[in-house]
């Protein structure tokens, strides 16, 4: 069996694995959260027939099949608990204030919105619904990209099937308008889903981030709360290098860039807080 979490072998392997996961995913498990990390990876190691977390660390660090295994790691680390219309003030600001400004600029071609940690797709679909309500979705000038580090989450997002809990903040009538009920939940209409282009992207990877970082509007909400300051700085540096001016970065209510960068300035626009690269 897997060495118990208290054994010295497990402790050594777990500390190494923690550092490796931090390096690769940005997610930091502090000493108090090591038990939680063990719970998440124990099953993965057992699935691969490993008796120790140290050996599993070696697999992820050195094995030729590590890339495939990392996909599984992202799946177990991803937090999928989210819902439609979460922190919707920022989406209102996007639709009512910022997008009309961007679209009115003569030289602005297609405007790109990137939901950088979209989990199972609730956020980008909320943006698509809000755009549709404002009559902007079919303008042909807006692109919505949605990515997550977890391939399983993106598979779920592509399927577009949601349970009751995902609708807890949805304005009345919207569910019936954009979803159809079927066994197992509510499925987003294909006419809505087709406006979102889905993909897997690790925020810590320059290669993964580069194709999307030039977006004028980036939603990266409720991710940095799991990241170390060092990881946040790395991601924000990647974004600030490529985002156009003005560029708008939306973070979760509990997240801040105050100690991380001076490129983005926090502004209150339309009653919502947005980090602006001006």
């Amino acid at each position, binding site marked *: *069996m897997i060495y118990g979490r208290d054994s010295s072998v497990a402790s050594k392997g777990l500390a*190494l694995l923690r550092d490796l996961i931090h390096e690769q995913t940005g997610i930091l498990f502090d000493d108090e959260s090591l038990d939680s990390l063990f719970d998440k990876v124990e*099953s993965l190691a057992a699935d691969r*027939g490993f008796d120790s977390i140290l050996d599993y660390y*070696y697999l992820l*660090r*050195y*094995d030729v099949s590590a890339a495939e295994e990392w996909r599984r790691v992202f799946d177990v680390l991803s937090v999928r608990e989210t819902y439609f219309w979460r922190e919707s003030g920022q989406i209102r600001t996007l639709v009512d204030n910022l997008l009309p400004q961007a679209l009115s600029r003569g030289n602005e071609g297609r405007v790109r919105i990137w939901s950088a940690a979209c989990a199972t797709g609730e956020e980008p679909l909320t943006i698509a619904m809000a755009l549709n309500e404002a009559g902007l979705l079919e303008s042909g000038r807006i692109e919505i990209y949605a990515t997550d580090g977890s391939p399983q989450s993106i598979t779920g997002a592509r399927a577009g099937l949601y349970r009751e809990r995902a609708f807890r903040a949805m304005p009345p009538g919207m569910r019936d308008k954009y979803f159809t009920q079927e066994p197992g939940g509510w499925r987003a209409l294909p006419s809505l889903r087709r406006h979102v282009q889905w993909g897997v992207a690790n925020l810590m990877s320059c290669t993964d981030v580069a194709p999307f970082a030039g977006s004028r509007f980036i939603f990266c909400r409720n991710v940095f709360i799991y990241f170390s300051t060092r990881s946040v700085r790395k991601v924000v540096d990647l974004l600030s290098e490529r985002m156009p001016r003005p560029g708008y970065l939306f973070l979760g209510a509990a997240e801040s860039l105050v100690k991380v960068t001076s490129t983005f300035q926090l502004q209150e626009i339309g009653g919502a807080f947005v980090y602006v690269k001006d």
Partner: protein
Amino acid sequence: VPALIEALENEDSLAAPVAHALAKIGDRRAFEALLKFIGHPAANVRRAAVAAINSLGHPEMAQRASTLLADPDPLIRESAVRIAGYFGYSAAADAVFQCCDDSVEAVRRTAIEHLPYLEDARVLPRLKRALEEDTPATRAAAAHALSYMDGEESTGLLIHALQDDDSWVRFHAARSLGRLKSEESVEALAEVVNTDPADHTRITAATAIGEIGGPLAAKTLQPLVLHENYDLAHSASMALALLGCSEALPPLVNLLRTGDAKRKLYAVRALGAMGGKRAVEALEWVAATDENPHLSQEAIEQIAQVGTSISTSALIRLTADRRLRDASINTLTRKVGSIETIGKALRESNIHVRKAMVDVLARMKHPEASTVLLTALDDEDASIRLSAVSAFGRLGSHRADRKLVEVAHRDTDPVVKEAARTLLLRSRAS
């Protein structure tokens, strides 16, 4: 137990922790419920259920194992092998051997891994065949299993397996040779360390060399402490520590002079694992001179872990340094076995050391430490005597009452006198 069984059967997400809990309790009423989980799709749940069943040692298990080893579900067969292997049921030996030829690799691999638990003449030839003919994962399992098979033949097979095409076979072969302390394999392991294309295999081979030792070991490991792969450098450092010979010390001490904080940390840990007078001296030097407070702290921790009178004396000396005092006091407080040495330090010429020892002895909250602490009430310095009086006040012990009466009447310092008197009054009132 009934509540846990109910949770096991009804809360799938809790299956693994509940099975762990049942394993700790070891109540046989859980037997049937646990058996239902040995074919669970999640590997950690299956393994938790198997571990719990193994902890029960149920009398019916031997008979049930034979049936389960032939179950149509490969997940159940795999778990059954783990159970039969753990108990080494002789009646199930044939069925376990049959599982070594199972069409499902996971079953075959697990059966191969568990063969050494069976006392059977067929084991070594079957492991040999697996190592030569099977898939990479099963060959790796055979290499792992051979670590339990002492003897020339198994060592020969493992040395040969160091040339396998698959890195995990070589990895397990190297690890098994280390566990077997196979001196004849050091040359082959050195070759792996220096030339194997897979880093994890080189790292494990370095550890194995440290476990085995011998004349070639230190020579092979010495340059690796500066290897660009930090895992390999760490492994080599720890392997040198395992050797514990005179040639192992200089490369570790040299690492302490590099500007690389990570390598210095490895050296500190290795020196702690090595122990001995010279390693402790090196650690004391790091603690006292390195500018990185984390490294100093780690050096102090490692000195404490050495656990000898030499290391205790080093920690006592470090209390003279204001920067290191708290950390040294904290580690010394755990050294209840060193009360005598710590007591002797109450006669040190450095007043800060004597004061620190008062702190250590008081924090130990140990009767023997309190007895030794009485000496401090006779210290030539009034501040030490006052610290000792305060320490007895915190301890709430009556052990010092007679001595405190003497201090309250005769101490030359009025503050110490008053403190002793107040403490006695408080003690009597309570």
